[in-house]
């Protein structure tokens, strides 16, 4: 039976620091769930994982695995297995010894260890490499050995700390799918740390976004994408990122590039000052003509033609959008020329609004 994992106000303050690396983290990982912790560097995601692993002290709060309080247990007593970013394979042991080491320490019978190592090796396609030392393996194979070492343990919880970041781009994509399907198959609760929001979106049942040690939002990938709780999550999730800019509000409209873009009534009611932070995803922009109501002009700077999609990067003409560029997804294979002036409207219902001061999402119903 899969187990749940609970962070209950868990806090970690590194010695000599005043601000916590992880601050009062409240998070429940459901049994069998693949939960991804994502955030920029320094967000505390790895620290949170290491607290769960028992590699970092918990200064306040508790951590539970199932119903068991593991806050102050040693790593080996937590029934967890971890995949490290740099794999941390034992260089002096063969692949088979690496994978079976935990069982050997636990005193399992030799035949049992061999059987379980072989089983894991079959799953991970490592049978031919069992006698090799790690240095005779490729990066992808080492990564699989690290996975195998975790699988052999048959732990309650898998912890993975950016296990794909040392692989090249292509291998990363294929391994990503393998890990996700393997996790579904084993049905083991998994906490996965990454800084790559694409990994988070594609792998996680749910995704927890952290920033500066504070949990911003936990939701399904689509939930985060469609209903970000604040401007940070909105900007962090999605590739290319959401367009975010601060605009003047007048008369229930946001003034974007001279155009008056109507805001939902609930949003207008929640705006405190005379400005609002507006967000719209690249695919929420629709090519339009100058005469359409609410359309604004963009000067195309760069067109990225990907074959299946095309992205237009441009500057909003005649406005004070405080974002680097406007990004719009456009139909591929018939893209506007570089330098062209293009008109866009925001698709109805696809506009996000955030408080200028706090960055919190404003209602858009």
């Amino acid at each position: 039976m899969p187990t749940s994992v609970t962070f209950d106000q868990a806090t970690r303050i590194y010695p000599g620091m005043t601000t916590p690396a992880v601050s009062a983290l409240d998070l429940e990982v459901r049994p069998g769930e693949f939960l991804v912790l994502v955030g920029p560097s320094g967000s505390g995601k790895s620290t949170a994982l290491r607290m769960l692993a028992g590699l970092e002290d918990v200064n306040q709060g508790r951590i539970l695995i199932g119903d068991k309080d593991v806050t102050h247990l040693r790593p080996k007593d937590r029934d967890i297995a971890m995949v490290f970013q740099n794999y941390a394979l034992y260089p002096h042991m063969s692949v088979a010894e690496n994978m079976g080491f935990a069982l050997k320490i636990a005193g399992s019978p030799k035949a049992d260890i061999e059987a379980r190592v072989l089983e894991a090796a079959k799953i991970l396609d490592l049978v031919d490499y069992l006698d090799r030392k790690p240095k005779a393996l490729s990066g992808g194979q080492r990564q699989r050995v690290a996975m195998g070492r975790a699988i052999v343990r048959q732990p309650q919880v898998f912890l993975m700390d950016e296990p794909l970041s040392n692989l090249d781009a292509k291998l990363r994509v294929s391994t990503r799918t393998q890990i996700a399907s393997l996790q579904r198959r084993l049905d083991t609760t998994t906490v996965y740390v990454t800084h790559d929001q694409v990994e988070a979106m594609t792998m996680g049942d749910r995704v927890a976004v952290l920033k500066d040690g504070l949990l911003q939002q936990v939701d399904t990938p689509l939930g985060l994408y469609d209903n970000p709780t604040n401007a940070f999550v909105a900007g962090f999730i999605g590739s290319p990122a959401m367009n975010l800019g601060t605009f003047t509000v007048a008369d229930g409209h946001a003034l974007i590039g001279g155009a008056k873009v109507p805001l939902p009534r609930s949003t207008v009611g929640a705006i405190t000052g005379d400005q609002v932070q507006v967000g719209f995803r690249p695919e929420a922009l629709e090519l339009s003509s100058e005469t359409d109501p609410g359309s604004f002009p963009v000067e195309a700077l760069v067109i990225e033609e990907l074959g299946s999609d095309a992205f237009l990067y441009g500057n909003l003409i005649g406005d004070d959008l405080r974002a680097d560029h406007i990004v719009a997804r456009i139909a591929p294979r018939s893209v506007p020329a570089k330098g062209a002036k293009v008109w866009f409207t925001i698709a109805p219902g696809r506009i996000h609004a955030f408080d200028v001061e706090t960055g919190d999402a404003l209602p858009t119903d």
Partner: protein
Amino acid sequence: MSSMPPATATETPAAVTPPRVRGREDRSLLASVALHGTLIVATFIALFPVLWVMLSSIKPASEIRRTEISLFASPTLENYRKVLFDTNFPQWFLNSVIVAAFTMVIGIAMSASAGYALSRFNFPGKRGLMWVFLLTQMFPVAILIVPIYTIMANLGLIDTKASLVIAYCTVAVPFCAWMLRGYFDTIPRELDEAAALDGLGPFGTFYRVILPLARPGLAVTAFYTFLTAWGEVAYAIAFMQTDDHYTLGAGLQQFVPQFSPRWDLLTAGAVLITIPAAIVFFFAQKHLVAGLTAGGTKG
């Protein structure tokens, strides 16, 4: 040196390189001669005394003392026979082996565990301890010998092998702890963490994961501690009082008193004592392999 600019790969691809153009890796003839000449002279300076001792050891005593210098003069193994059978040399040799072996084993055990603690753990006084290790290295033996003698006398250890083992460890352990700490620092911490998750405690991690990877560092430590004890004279003369308890350093001194030195015995003894050191070095150097930790972690 030639004034010709070094050829670079971009300017002169291999196919069109004229034969006389020198690559960046090549030396001029003059530089080669100077370099090899220097190396040969340096090698000769380093090897000559050893060679001279070896040649002398197979000469009769009268030949050694002659003012006329010759490389070979009625070569004989008589000196070796006398040293091995007519003197206390075998007993001193055995004493030295015992003292050096214990110094080596105890020295490695202490410096490896101290080095690991310094590398991995935080504890009060850690910085202070490392300073103390350094400070103890700064006193010359001549200054230390009297207080250590007093301590040994109070402990009743004078004229015992234990006194020498302890004294040699005070010399070797601080240095080796520093050295091994540096070596342990190069072993990724993630391996310790992986071991902790796999169920090992700190000592198990040290013994089963770290030590096997620190073999080159341990080999150097072994050789260093062995040598510290093997050829040492000052402590040996001060602490050892009976002829049967002498180690080689103290014993060989007996051959060359102020008057009528027995160079024939000394040279033969000197050659013989290099053998164990060479054996220890032979076993140590087998472990001096680079890249033991390769493949464990990436990046």
